């Protein structure tokens, strides 16, 4: 791709996608203004690995939902390196329903190895939480754009990516599971992860070809520049999505996934 200076191997992109190049709070502050965080799912708790709230995008109120992997070790442990609990997904569902009521576009930022595979997560219905996030997204009549800024693993990522458009950072990945898991399941050898990355088609370029995503966000060391680009493009795309009638928007979103 001429867009980027030099093309990295899939295995190299997998490594980069896990390097915390961009922090959740940094993205929120960089792209939006007036952010107010809203907590809790009103059922069982508040998952700090999903930050949610209301902000302004070029003046327009929007709902922002961001998976946070944490910054230092303690923070990462408490956020399970960005693996949400069921009550995280249920918080997201609550905020999405709220956005729908007030006709606010929804923008999600995704960076997760997957939904947390824990004992209480399972007991509290991790599968049901993801299933309902997907189903509810298929009924919302406000524009939804999902941006993958690091790793996007499996159903835990899809739960926040059933949108009108999905974008990816240049060094992000989106896959059915981690290359390690893939190699371990198919070849019974998790050490062949690099090889798995090659055949999985998890890079932005591969996914763009398969029309899984609509846009690749070029990265750079100059983060404000990246954020300005995102803000500008979000504004353009949301404005254009807002010209559609609610039923048209919904039909288009469903058709987007019907094509797979």
């Amino acid at each position, binding site marked *: 791709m001429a867009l980027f200076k030099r093309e990295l191997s899939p295995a190299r992109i997998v490594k980069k996608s896990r390097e915390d190049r961009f922090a959740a709070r940094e993205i929120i502050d960089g792209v939006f203004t007036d952010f107010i965080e809203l907590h809790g799912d009103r059922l069982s708790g508040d998952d700090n690995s999903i930050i949610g709230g209301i902000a302004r995008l070029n003046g327009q109120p929007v709902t922002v939902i961001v998976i946070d992997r944490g910054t230092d070790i303690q923070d990462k442990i408490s956020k399970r390196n960005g693996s949400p609990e069921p009550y995280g997904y249920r918080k997201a569902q609550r905020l999405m329903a709220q956005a729908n009521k007030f006709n606010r576009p929804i923008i999600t930022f995704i960076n997760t190895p997957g939904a947390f595979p824990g004992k209480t997560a399972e007991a509290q219905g991790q*599968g*049901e939480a993801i299933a309902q996030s997907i189903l509810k997204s298929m009924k919302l009549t406000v524009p939804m754009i999902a941006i993958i800024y690091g790793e996007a693993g499996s159903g835990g990522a899809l739960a926040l990516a059933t949108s009108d458009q999905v974008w990816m950072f240049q060094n992000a990945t989106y896959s*059915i599971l981690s290359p390690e898991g893939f190699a371990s399941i198919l070849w019974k050898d998790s050490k062949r992860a690099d090889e798995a990355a090659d055949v999985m088609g*998890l890079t932005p370029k591969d*996914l763009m070809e398969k029309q899984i995503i609509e846009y690749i966000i070029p990265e750079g060391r100059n983060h404000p520049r990246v954020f300005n680009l995102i803000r500008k493009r979000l504004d353009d795309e949301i404005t254009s999505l807002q010209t559609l009638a609610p039923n048209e928007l919904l039909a288009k979103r469903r058709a987007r996934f019907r094509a*797979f």
Partner: protein
Amino acid sequence: MNIFDQHKHQTAKIKRQDNVNERIPDGLFLACPYCGAQMYNKQLGRYRVCSKCGYGFRLQARERVTLFTDTFTEMDADIVQTNPDFPGYADKLSRAQEQTDLGESVLTGEAVIKGQKVALGVMDPYFMMASLGSKTGEKITRLFEYATENQLPVVLFTASGGARMQEGINSLMQMAKISAAVAQHQEAGLLYLVVLTDPTTGGVTASFAMQGDVTLAEPHALVGFAGARVIESTIHEKLPKDFQRAETLLKNGFVDKIVPRETLADTIGQLVALHQSTEV
């Protein structure tokens, strides 16, 4: 001649059971994968249920249709994966097709269950562990679309080891594709009845298996999102025996009712009848 026929029949059974690692000393005896009780093959009866604990042995989709429907007309039998380009995938696929007499891991059609007309889907754990391939997703999506068009309830027997790894991201997209069709069916005010069977896991649990209006389960069916080994290695502790079994899900509020196979058709018929619009 008769003797040979019988022998052939039992060999086929042994082969099938081997595939799910069920311990079988020979064709006559087998062990319940749930409680371990040894029993005669014939003791399982036509519903293939453990006489001791009530666990329902895994069934092929076509066996299920025979057991639970009055009539069944298959649809979309011609939908098969025509481009299995991952190494080794084509072989696995054709072996599964041969073994199950199915084109994909789900059998769909229009059925009558205890006098009630329904759109029926049955996932087959003997077809690549009912993994969610793009054609599996296509058949289930079409089933919901057909039901919406024809104002029919959907009854779906779920089973799955999860995503179809060989199809990568396209497998993941099926979760969203089917969910969109479920949403449309829901908006038409139609009933979606899920029957969780052993095993229902991964991406299927994280999508259409957990989107029903009413969710039934077979006794002791394994139902979960993450695999037990993955959970154990994440939290470094051993999980209790019934951690992801239907009875635990019932207790935790994710299943409406556990129904033994013997009364399953009656329960489905009754639930569908209760959702018929009454004439004014």
